[in-house]
């Protein structure tokens, strides 16, 4: 048995993951993702009319995305007004999803994606991308593939997968990645921290490996949902299932 992390995981091991679809009544599509202590909820509305109208495009749908943290999601209460970080991540998440979409199908409409972090325990943007992709599917919006997302990072000089909050706060580098299932392309890539080129290669490969595992859970969740489309069905995938 090799290096073990503060929560007992191996360096290349995901935290336990739960996913659920169709968890909200009013939204056109919705999904819930739990990854370790991180809990996110996503709703999709659309395609629908754009207000104000001058934002509409004759060439296709516009995508609006909001990443937002609940005031009680963090250690210190978070002011509910959007922070600079939340505004940046809203854009980054939108750009992670757009490559998977056929925007030209719905000219003059908007697809609105609302991602709420209910509890923040590291990796919230990735969990949101994973959940957004499921919620889009649940809304019946055609996708080129599912987008699965996971971060790798460097903590205590070790490259590891899917940092939790403690690792995240003390990390030397954080590398969130999103991956489009059908093409294998990277649709989200950020680096926050210092990595040598070799470390970067290692971390990116590890993150992509995590994305592929998360994609498998997404697929399983969708299949279960469509085979038995009962509300609040949850595919639980513990430590074993995530390897």
């Amino acid at each position: 048995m090799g290096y073990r992390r503060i929560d007992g995981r191996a360096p290349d091991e995901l935290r336990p993951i739960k996913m659920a679809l169709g968890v909200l009544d009013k939204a056109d599509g919705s999904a819930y993702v739990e990854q370790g202590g991180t809990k996110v909820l996503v709703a999709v509305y659309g395609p629908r009319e754009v207000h104000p109208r001058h934002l509409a495009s004759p060439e296709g749908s516009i995508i609006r995305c909001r990443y937002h943290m609940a005031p009680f999601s963090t250690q210190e209460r978070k002011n509910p007004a959007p922070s600079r970080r939340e505004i940046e991540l809203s854009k980054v998440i939108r750009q992670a999803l757009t490559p998977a979409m056929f925007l030209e199908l719905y000219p003059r409409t908007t697809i609105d994606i609302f991602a709420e972090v209910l509890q923040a325990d590291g990796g919230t943007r990735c969990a949101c991308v994973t959940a957004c992709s499921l919620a889009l599917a649940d809304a019946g919006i055609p996708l080129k593939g599912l987008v699965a997302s996971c971060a790798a990072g460097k903590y205590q000089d070790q490259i590891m997968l899917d940092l939790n909050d403690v690792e995240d706060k003390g990390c030397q580098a954080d590398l969130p990645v999103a991956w489009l299932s059908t093409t294998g392309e990277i649709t989200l890539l950020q680096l926050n921290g210092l990595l040598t080129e070799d470390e970067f290669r290692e971390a990116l490969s590890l993150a992509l490996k995590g994305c592929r595992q998360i994609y498998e859970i997404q697929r399983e969740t969708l299949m279960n949902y469509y085979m038995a489309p009962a509300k609040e069905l949850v595919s639980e995938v513990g430590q074993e299932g995530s390897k």
Partner: protein
Amino acid sequence: MSINVIPQITRERILELAGKGRRIDGRFLYQYRPIRIERGLIKKADGSAQVSIGSTKVLVGVKIETGEPFPDTPDQGVLMVNAELVPLASPVFEPGPPNEDALELARVVDRGLRESKCLRFEDLCINPGRKVFVVFVDIYVLDYDGNLFDASALASIAALMDTKMKPHRIEAGEVLWLEGEPSPLNLQHYPVSITIAKAGGALFVDPSLEEEQSVDALLTITMDEQNRLCAIQKGPGSFTSEEVFKSVQIAKEVSNYLRESLK
């Protein structure tokens, strides 16, 4: 909440049925939709509860931090109630700062908690005039199918019942945190909200979204466990004083049922 999405025929049906003492979803007049309460979902909060009333879903998180007291109550803790009509909850909610509906919701829940004196605010003082505990009650509306007042009030008191503080002593105007298990807040009272709709001459409780948008008038009454009134808010429409008094009777009956759900 401003867009009318209910077809005219549904509205007429709701009014017509109410006149006969019936509801469009088959409920009795004084019957709530199924209520489900889950506590402790949010470990990062000091207390939390998610309440569903039918499809309406509200998540409340409580955080206790330190801050300054209000100038007119220098030796009492502070209660801050905030409500977010999160845009994922409804096609008519929009991102942005709380609008008048969100502010009203927060203020009505706040009045129920504050006036019922469910919290012992004097116990939340650290250094009079300078430092007190601030109890943040954050109402997060996740799915909006009517009757946000009752769901939010219920989730708020449930979250406060779930709230624990680490053991501490107050010494020389500072908090000393001690070893040991967190212990629950000491609640004095258990206010709940009952929303009553008026339609076709009848009064009924817990209007769903399509009922809310069809009825003639709405009234929300908050009551403690001794049947004392601690907050009232009339919404749209008007009531005779007899209807108001009858609403208080209904609230008395129904509030016990709601309070049961908290156990």
